[in-house]
């Protein structure tokens, strides 16, 4: 998957005319994209066998091979492919199934520009991850595991038929993996609610208790870390740090007078800025454990060790996963560049600014934290934004507000 080669996209629908419409509408993209249109699942399977694709956009309900089957095949055999659903179907059970097999769900009727944007966004993420192993890992990921304690709590609570939605929302918003999954579902139009979601609580209330209950209990949307495989202390440290950075980011965004939406994004990005670590801990626990050890022994930042191993750090991995899950661009950007914001092209304060500062400030406040010595402000970035002189004031106001 070289960056220069044309992107290959497979569109699948059992209705030829739908494909014709998309083909005409996307004709202007012909120079950058190679588009193949397959009528029905059977033809799609033949196409998949014959050549490589980067993205699949498929209908769900088709005679013969259904969209769900197709997505399962793709996930299994071509794990690095990005899987988008374009469906007019409103059967909840089918939609629930796709929450684990599709990265994003677009609901018909859908503006082709939205399809275009979703594809473009997914592809722009490609430059984040250069290691095929990591791309595969990221695209195959169904869910990001939860802290065992939080997982057990929500499972117990959901068994209770009269549990208030508010309690469920509170639990979910305490967990990074659950929050990320909820945001994926509401930001995509899985249940017809693609709109700006300001918080995990709001996402939960939009979905409602019935959908959440079936997603969690019947479709096993959430998973927990396997206690035997991970170092629970490391896990807890990441958790405490993430929640702190979330709070600080929000505060800093407010202090910097970012607009309301960006304040919300700052909180989300802060909470999820280290989600890449969780993914690595869950997916390659042993490798990650040895990277952690090496980093301590060599006194090197962990992210350097990650780079050595995967040509990317947890920052890029987290951004990539949440990117293909359809989370908002400012959140993705903040996660991807939270160590080196100068690598991003932005010149004005954004959630990235808030998360970068919050991350460093939290390490300053807790100097005992092992990563503290390796995290520092990106002066080049701060200069670009004309913030270098204001950092002390920001830090002071943040600490005052705590």
């Amino acid at each position, binding site marked *: 998957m070289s960056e220069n080669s044309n992107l290959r996209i497979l569109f699948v629908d059992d*209705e030829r*005319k*739908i494909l*014709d*419409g*998309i083909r*005409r*509408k996307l*004709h*202007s993209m*012909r120079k950058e994209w190679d588009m193949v249109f397959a009528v029905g699942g059977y033809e799609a399977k033949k196409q998949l066998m014959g050549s490589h694709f980067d993205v699949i956009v498929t209908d769900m*309900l088709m*005679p*013969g091979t259904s969209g769900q089957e197709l997505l399962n095949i793709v996930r299994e055999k071509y794990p690095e492919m990005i899987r988008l659903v374009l469906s*007019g*179907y*409103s*059967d909840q059970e089918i939609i629930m199934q796709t929450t684990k097999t599709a990265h994003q769900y677009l609901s*018909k*009727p*859908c*503006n*082709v520009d939205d399809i275009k944007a979703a594809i473009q966004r997914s592809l722009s993420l490609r430059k984040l991850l250069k290691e095929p192993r990591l791309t595969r890992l990221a695209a195959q990921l169904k869910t990001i595991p939860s802290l065992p304690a939080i997982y057990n709590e929500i499972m117990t609570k959901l068994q209770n038929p009269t549990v208030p939605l508010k309690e469920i929302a509170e639990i979910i918003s305490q967990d990074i993996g659950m929050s990320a999954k909820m945001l994926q579902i509401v930001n995509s139009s899985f249940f017809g609610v693609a709109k700006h979601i300001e918080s995990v609580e709001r996402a939960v209330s939009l979905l409602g208790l019935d959908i959440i209950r079936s997603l969690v209990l019947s479709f096993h949307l959430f998973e927990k870390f396997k206690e035997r495989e991970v170092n629970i202390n490391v896990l807890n440290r990441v958790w405490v740090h993430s929640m702190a950075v979330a709070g600080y980011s929000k505060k800093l965004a407010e202090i910097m007078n970012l607009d309301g939406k960006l304040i919300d994004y700052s909180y989300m990005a802060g909470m999820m800025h280290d989600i890449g670590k969780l993914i690595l801990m869950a997916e390659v626990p042993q490798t990650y454990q040895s990277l952690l050890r090496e980093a301590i022994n060599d006194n090197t930042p962990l992210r350097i060790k990650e780079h050595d191993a995967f040509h990317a750090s947890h920052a890029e991995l987290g951004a990539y996963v949440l990117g293909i899950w359809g989370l908002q661009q400012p959140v993705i950007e903040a996660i991807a560049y939270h160590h080196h914001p100068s690598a991003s092209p932005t010149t004005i304060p954004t959630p990235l600014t808030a998360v970068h500062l919050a991350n460093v400030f939290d390490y300053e406040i807790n100097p005992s934290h092992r990563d503290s010595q390796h995290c520092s402000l990106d002066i080049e970035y701060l200069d670009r934004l004309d913030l270098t002189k204001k950092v002390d004031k920001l830090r002071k106001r943040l600490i005052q507000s705590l």
Partner: protein
Amino acid sequence: MKALIADDDFVIQEVLKSVMKMLDLEPIVVDTGIEALRVLNGSDPPMIATLDWSMPGMSGLDVCKAIRIQHPTVPFYLIIITAYSDRESLVSALEAGASDFIRKPFDVPELSARLETGKRLIQMQNRIENQFKANEQLIASINSILISVDEDNIVKHWNHIAAEIFGIAEDDALGQNFSILPIEWNWEKIGQMVDRCILADEVVLLNDFSYIDPEDRELFLNISINPYIGSSIDKRGFLIIANDVTEQKFIESQLMHSQKLESIGQLAAGIAHEINTPVQFVTDNTEFLKESIETISGILEKCEDALKECAEKHNCNDSLEKLQELKDEADADFLLDEIPYALNQNLEGLQKIATIVKAMKEFSYPPQTQMVPIDLSEAIKNTSIVARNEWKYISELKMEFDEDLPPVYCHPGELNQVFLNLIINAVHAIQEKLGETSQEMGLITITTRKDGDMAEIKVTDTGSGIPEKAQNRIFDPFFTTKDVGKGTGQGLFICHSVIVDKHKGSITFDTQQGKGTTFTIKIPIIPEDQKEDDDE
């Protein structure tokens, strides 16, 4: 049983006492007429009494007279004891209200026999009275309107339900001429039915009879008019028993309505999907057309510039080259190739949307009280379009219509509901046989045929068939063999009610395990009452 002895003679008291005890009577003894009256006027008085004619103060005759005046309806058995034996005395005793009399001195067997007669009479009266009370109670507890009218058309009985429903109190109704009571209903019809009941001496039934209650609400009554033998032998009265079925009717119509809503709700998602597809590609194509026109206009503008340049410079090579570049850049050939197809597909798409919308409109035909003649093949086609998303992934649907079948009188909305229910059932049966994820398709065939003056509709599926155990019960309400959440057991019940009750037709089925089922509906092409109207 208590018995009273009123006598001032101690010896006679003793004789009477001993005879009464032999007869299992419990004697109460008093010396004077005044005291006798007090006992008889008391609570739970003895019903049988011997009264001495001549007692000091008040005589036995005086006691008789007083009791009969004070309690004209209480059947006391009063025996006068007297030494007089002349006819005049006897008559005056009976006239005073005595039931019997016994001469002194006593002949004990006679005394005993006369007391015995009294006792038997009282016992019989008690029995009749108890029976009467029981009947009264029974009648009072009937939860229907109960009215009896005698041979002279006078209301003789008017129960509390009648009072409640008609808003006329019992006292106001009793003794009135039935036909002039202020009840707002079709009196002409009632009159006809009463006549028929009396003349033919048979029970006449009137169902769903409309009545406007005092609060101006329309109620529906199921009325039965029964011949009733009054006091005269050759003339008959009648008895009206009626029930308020308004709520029941309401529930029935609600049931029908809720089943309709339920099926429309189920269909809505499918219809949305059916409409979504054309909406998606028509929108895409239209946007493509818009962009194409913009591109082509741009090229045309450039053409004009090129023409001018050509004319001015007398050298067209540069301009032509530029134009060619522009044309290549815009991929004009692609646009010209695709535009006609896009336009055609748009028209097809819009046509499809129009067909679906029209079918939906016709499917949910507004409820009508009158039957209307409709083309059954159109109705079936519409229903199949509305339900298309339910069957298209599971079965083929074949329709064969008899062209000789004239328009059929029916309630279209309800008949469509029947077709829909049968199609959905067929789909479920096929799904059950083939399994949820099968790639194999079933077949549903719908045919119509003119069968004499009946229209016959057959819906045949290649599904699982109806299990033998279920065959007797499939038309019962709430009976279902489907999984929870898939059927409420209302579908075939509604079908049966619509076809049999509303259209006076029949619905039968023929099923083979594992092979499939055929439902056959027959309804009159022209219903009976419509025929009469047509003749007129």
